[in-house]
């Protein structure tokens, strides 16, 4: 065990009483009383339906919930979830509830789950989200099988999404992680994942559990660590991940700051890895991939474009310090276009993101300020993406995303050059 000092005596006692297991499912909870019962039921049903011969355990790492989350976890019975199950677990299903010490957050919860997995010598460790009720027993089966049967080390989820869902993920996070790490992982921010024994041990020894990544980007940190460590990675097609109720207090600015800040922190952490150029590797997909949803949705593009245009004018002095002169001139030229003609080209967007990454590395200004300045530019790009794909079907949207990713990959030398230039100054 890399560092077991953060495990409580009580948890250690429970783990020793439990002994070794084959499959360990972990939940990171904090005030999820509304949804956690469903997730626990789904895990128990998966144990009964798909893994009734295996030694299984369910661990809930809780950050101090006060809404009855733990009581719900303890009282949930598999029969509540699936009253007509044809099979039942032949071995004891261990269930441990582990409030953890330290700073509340997903990183500490996952660290606790991984430490428990390592102590109990779990062959597969699955982490599922407790904040939504989309998890089914089949999801857990789809996550476990690639590790158990095909010796994959890391299983990344694949959710069918609407073509305009996850615009930041599609336009920035996925293309950038793919260009940098050379792996085509479409959901690098995770949600539901499975890990092999050796990846769990590797992750516990990494420096991702503290600092910027631990606060906001632990999922991204784990995906990146798996890619850099050369582990066998695959994607597993799961069902629709129903979003939990949107928290209006979380602004787009803070989302961009946290997600893109974590991504840029990963770039700095793994600089040596991505500076060596390598061609992207296909990641095998397990299960039947579902098509994108295409039904019309309400999006106010005018508002997005207005924010973009006024940002280029109002934040000009800030952008001058971040963007290369050529990039800034091209971005400024876009503001003269009407809403119908607005087209933020892939290459310009890739250069914009790379300029921001280099400026982040160079610390041209307070990093929070820098990331806040990216938000309105992203809105311009997102609005352009929506406009261009209004009538597109699923294959066309996939093609557009592929072109964007190729632009990011093609311009990787530009990032390397800007990054290097920033170090020489």
């Amino acid at each position, binding site marked *: 065990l890399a560092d077991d000092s953060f495990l409580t005596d009580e948890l250690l006692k429970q783990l020793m009483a439990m002994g070794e297991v084959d499959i360990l499912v972990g939940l990171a909870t904090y005030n999820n009383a509304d949804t956690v019962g469903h997730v626990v039921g789904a895990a128990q049903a998966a144990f009964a339906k798909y893994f009734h011969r295996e030694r299984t355990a369910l661990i809930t790492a809780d950050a101090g919930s006060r809404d009855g989350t733990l009581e719900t976890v303890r009282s949930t019975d598999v029969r509540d979830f699936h009253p007509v199950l044809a099979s039942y677990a032949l071995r004891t299903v261990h269930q441990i509830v582990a409030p953890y010490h330290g700073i509340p957050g997903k990183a500490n919860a996952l660290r606790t789950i991984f430490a428990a997995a390592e102590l109990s010598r779990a062959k597969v460790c699955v982490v599922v989200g407790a904040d939504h009720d989309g998890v089914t027993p089949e999801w857990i089966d789809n996550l476990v099988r690639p590790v158990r049967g095909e010796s994959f080390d890391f299983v990344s989820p694949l959710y069918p999404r609407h073509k*305009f*869902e*996850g*615009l*930041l*993920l599609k336009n920035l996070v996925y293309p950038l992680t793919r260009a940098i790490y050379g792996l085509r992982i479409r959901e690098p*921010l995770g949600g539901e994942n499975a890990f092999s024994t050796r990846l769990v041990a590797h992750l516990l020894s990494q420096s991702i559990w503290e600092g910027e990544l631990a606060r906001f980007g632990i999922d991204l940190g784990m995906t990146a660590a798996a890619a850099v460590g050369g582990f066998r990675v695959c994607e597993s097609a799961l069902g629709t991940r129903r*979003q939990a109720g*949107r928290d209006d207090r979380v*602004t*787009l*600015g803070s*989302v*961009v700051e946290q*997600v893109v800040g974590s991504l840029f922190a990963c770039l700095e952490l793994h600089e040596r890895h991505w500076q060596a150029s390598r061609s992207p590797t296909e990641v095998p997909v397990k299960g039947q991939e579902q098509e994108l949803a295409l039904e019309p*949705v*309400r*999006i*106010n593009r005018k*508002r997005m474009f207005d*924010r973009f245009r*006024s*940002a280029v004018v*109002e*934040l000009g*002095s*800030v952008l001058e*310090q971040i963007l290369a002169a050529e990039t800034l001139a091209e971005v400024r030229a876009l503001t003269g276009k009407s809403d119908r003609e607005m087209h933020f080209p892939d290459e310009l967007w890739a250069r914009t993101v790379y300029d921001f990454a280099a400026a982040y590395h*160079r*610390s*041209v*200004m*307070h990093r929070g*300020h820098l990331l*806040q*300045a990216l*938000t*309105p530019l992203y809105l311009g790009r*997102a609005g352009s993406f*929506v406009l261009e794909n209004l009538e597109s079907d699923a294959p066309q949207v996939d093609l557009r995303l592929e072109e964007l990713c190729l632009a990011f990959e093609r311009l990787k030398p530009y990032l390397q050059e800007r990054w290097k230039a920033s170090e020489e*100054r």
Partner: protein
Amino acid sequence: MGNKVIDALEQAWGSSLEAAARFLPRLLAMFIFVVVGWFVALLLGMVVGRVLRWVNFNALCRSAGVTELLRKADLPAPDVVLGRLVFWVVWIVFILSGLSALGLRPAEDMVSQFFLFIPQLLAALLILAVGILLANFVSRAALLAAFNANLPSARLLSNLIWFFIVILAVTMALDQLSLARTVVLTAFAIAFGAVMLALAIAFGMGGRDVARRMLERQFPEERAVEKDELSHL
């Protein structure tokens, strides 16, 4: 009579020669101070410049917005500016020491006053530098926060904050130097009061509608707001 005149002339000549003999070594000492001081100041200025470059001081200034400010004022890079500042301060100290070596009473007074003034000057420069750094940081934070919160006139707000902090820093620096203290403080108090009064009047009378719109936006009534059906993650 003739002898007396000759004696007087000889005495005066002797005194002059004696005074010159006393003064010339001091004058020479002053020149040595000035010349040696120039070399020492040049050396120290270069050393400071090198050390600042070594510790990447320019990058720090760039992130704090100081470089941009210097560029707008047509001044060189921060390490060069500080190097030159060190050069001039050190050389002036040597020049004043040279003047002191002349043994002239007014020069000695001036030198002692200057040495008493140096700590105040450094403190004032520090206050000014910190003030400018703070002004740049806070005004940029205000600009980005106001813009992303969709507040009107984000840039105007940011500029006002910048000017307010810089004027405050300049006033504090001048006060530290005890330069026209009463005039500076009174002018600042009047200017600050006038700005506040103008804002109050403008907001209270001229900008009633704007204020209402802003408050309505800040505290909206419970009503169905049409939201986008897109998610970013």
